[in-house]
């Protein structure tokens, strides 16, 4: 209703208009330093309006549903000086049917979330009472509506459930943070499994190991794979391709990674962390193969960049955000991958990743959580080690991909295997 009002008002002066309304209710519980610390209820409203007039685009946002006149007048003010548009608003199209809403999450209230959190806290404390444990659970119920002057009207409801557990262990001047968390759009999340994974990272770090600087084989855990995916994501961004800053800009159809590497973006996985049926530009979501058997197959385009580049929009929204990334599994069991390494690193978390020159592929980051592998076994945590390399070189130097995969949620979300890279440079203190 409010969207129709906004569009109707905007259309008195604009040639086309599109508006989005998002309303969300959130509920969180948070454990810190071995105790239940806080809980939160939150209510959010978000309205976005795009108007097109004389071939130019203006945008405004508000959080105030009573500010219809304000949001319209600010968009109309902006459009006078707006950026030239290279697209038309999409008309109504069939949108895919995907599961983003789990009614089982609705009755989940704070007392039950507190109980689930306490269970995870107890698991961590019973593994090692010296760990200062923490945990967090949050559920969100989101409603999203989109309408435009070309006749598209979509709406969707999403539920989201986030569960995380971890802690901090201080021994002398040795400070260790470890944890594991997962976001999904459904109620069914195994909290015991999440605590068990967090504990596993502590277990592997019970001992510290010293490392000699040098070149060595590296296994990236599913979370650790971000070091390679971060650069790749920037390189696949159609805007960076169009503006000429992507190193992949002229490599469509070329081998950019080892033939064992296949990556696709799949927004249609039921209950996936970033699953949805339509994007914020009014386009239906669909699966986009990005790298197939090492060959670069697609870039990610929003409507405007696609219009300028003569490409097709891929349904990743105006900011070209990747959704659920999926790396195909390999044929090596993880245990076998480990066994094959005489001396190397298992890399899980970083400090300072992305601060170098990620678009060029370069990374140089401290290992916040990395482990030394010796004669096929993890022998302890390494500290004060900088791992450096180039993501594009590393992708071509993939030695093995595991059969096992895990969901990772965070900076880049998806279903990732363990990936072994031939050689990378590690500098130790």
């Amino acid at each position, binding site marked *: 209703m409010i969207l129709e009002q906004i569009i109707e008002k905007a259309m008195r002066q604009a040639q086309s208009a599109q508006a989005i309304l998002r309303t969300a209710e959130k509920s969180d519980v948070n454990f810190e330093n071995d105790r239940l610390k806080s809980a939160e209820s939150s*209510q959010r409203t978000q309205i976005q309006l795009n108007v097109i007039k004389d071939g130019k685009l203006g945008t405004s946002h508000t959080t105030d549903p009573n500010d219809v006149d304000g949001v319209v007048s600010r968009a109309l003010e902006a459009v006078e000086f707006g950026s*030239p548009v290279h697209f038309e608003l999409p008309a109504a199209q069939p949108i895919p049917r995907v599961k983003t809403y789990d009614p089982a999450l609705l009755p989940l209230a704070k007392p039950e979330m507190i109980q689930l959190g306490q269970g995870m806290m107890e698991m961590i404390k019973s593994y090692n009472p010296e760990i200062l444990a923490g945990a967090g659970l949050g559920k969100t119920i989101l409603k999203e509506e989109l309408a435009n002057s070309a006749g598209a009207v979509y709406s969707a409801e999403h539920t989201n459930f986030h569960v995380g557990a971890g802690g901090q262990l201080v021994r002398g001047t040795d400070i260790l*943070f470890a944890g594991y968390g997962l976001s999904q759009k459904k109620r069914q999340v195994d909290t015991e499994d999440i605590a068990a994974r967090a504990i596993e990272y502590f277990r592997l770090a019970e001992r510290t190991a010293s490392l000699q*600087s040098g070149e060595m084989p590296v296994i990236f855990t599913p979370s650790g794979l971000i070091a390679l995916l971060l650069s790749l994501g920037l390189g696949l961004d159609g805007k960076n391709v169009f503006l000429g800053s992507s190193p992949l800009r002229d490599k469509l159809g070329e081998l950019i990674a080892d033939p064992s590497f296949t990556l696709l973006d799949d927004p249609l996985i039921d209950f996936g962390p970033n699953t949805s049926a339509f994007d914020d530009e009014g386009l239906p979501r669909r699966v986009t193969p990005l790298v197939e058997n090492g060959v670069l197959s697609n870039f990610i385009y929003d409507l405007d960049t696609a219009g300028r580049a003569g490409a097709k929009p891929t349904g990743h929204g105006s900011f070209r955000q990747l959704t659920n990334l999926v790396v195909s599994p390999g044929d090596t069991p993880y245990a076998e991958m480990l066994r094959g390494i005489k001396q190397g690193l298992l890399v899980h978390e970083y*400090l300072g990743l992305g601060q170098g020159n990620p678009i060029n592929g370069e990374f140089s980051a401290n290992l916040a959580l990395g482990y030394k592998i010796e004669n096929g076994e993890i022998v302890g945590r390494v500290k004060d080690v900088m791992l450096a390399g180039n993501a594009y070189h590393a992708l071509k130097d993939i030695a093995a991909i595991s059969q096992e995969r895990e969901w990772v949620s965070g900076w880049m979300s998806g279903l990732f295997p363990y990936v072994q890279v031939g050689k990378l440079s590690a500098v130790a203190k």
Partner: protein
Amino acid sequence: MQDRLVQALKVHDVEYADIRIEDDLSSWIVFQGPDLDRINSFRIVGGIVRALYKGGWGYATFNDLDDLEKRVKEACETARLVGKQQTYYAPAEPVVDIIPAHLQKDFRLIPLAEKKALAEEYNRLVLGHHARIQTSSVGYSDSFKTCWYANSEGTYIQEEKPNVFVFANATAREGDIVQNSFETDGGPEGYQTVENFHAKAEKAAARAVSLLAAPSVTGGKYTVVADPLLTGVFTHEAFGHLSESDFVYENERMQELMQLGKRFGVERLNIIDDGALPGGLGTHHYDYEGVPTRKNYLIKEGILVGRLHSRETAGKMGEQPTGNARAVNFHHPPIVRMTNTYLEPGKDTFEEMIKDIKLGVLAVNAIGGQTAMEMFTFSASYGYMIRDGQVAELVRDVVLTGNVFEILLNIDRIGDKLEWQPNGPGGCGKGDQAPLRVGLGGPYVRIQNCVIGGQQ
């Protein structure tokens, strides 16, 4: 608004409650390459109620301001669900204060056309600088935020917080090599702070081009001279976060590690956090719990002498609140944060610092930094090798790492001039709260045995 807040707080039935409301009108104008990429306007209105009961917090955050009493009740109910222990909350004198903005040149009165023309001018300077400039991201942003705060002890503060900045990111390319360089400027004092950015925009472009030919630094252990801007980031990452008491107040082991009186650095080392510093990026009259900000020595003559507190951490540790409870916006409760953190200048000149370095790295400015308390990294924007006491060739990909318990003891020279990072879109991140504006300052410092990542 004062009446509404006071009225709403009356329904609380817990030990302590407060409300913060914000209304923020902001705009962004961004060019990418030769074209305008976006021109956006945001109005973000909302608030947070906090309720404290038996050591447990209940929060309610919201965009809809219609029924504040309902939000207060909601927060109180939540706090009662959580609180099972004892409340620690240091006392603070109630204050009533209204702090208007002081803008020399009010950006709200500047037409959008003029702001766009300004950003366009800086963008032209970047793109036109050199044939190897591939693309750009150059923009202007302003924000005028009004905050209203009241607590159940009678404090009421109304404060206007303006901010304006410009930024220029230049991307140069030669074959497969792509290099970026970034400059920013601006400040809370008004539109005049963004009007003289021409030289900086060109500097960003020139540096991106020269980095194309610069080799990556060779990884290893070096004597490093950090320039003042990097020293600011280093001080914040390497030590500042460790002085935030929420990492310490419920952690006995950390309390042992961070015992006041312990030696952390050389005798000439002084580190300060000052939320009351005039003109600082992290300056506030009061923090987000209504506590006046002040100058806090963290390290004095190499000895740990203080730490940063919220009312809760101060209460638990039996120390004074320091005015460091801050939140990035109303979606989040305040947590212990730095304000303007700096390493106090010493006596050494730059020449004295480098003259006896046989092989070292001069690390300049910072892209960012991150810490896990003990270990930290910070990334210089670029660097130069130092060879036989002279500044030598330009190098790129300079990422430094260290361990806080060693690195401050490895500082052996402290420069004589303090400089601050300019205003820009960046800031500090902690938990899920980013970017929070902080002041980062320092002089040139020399650090022995510093690890730099890279191929060997």
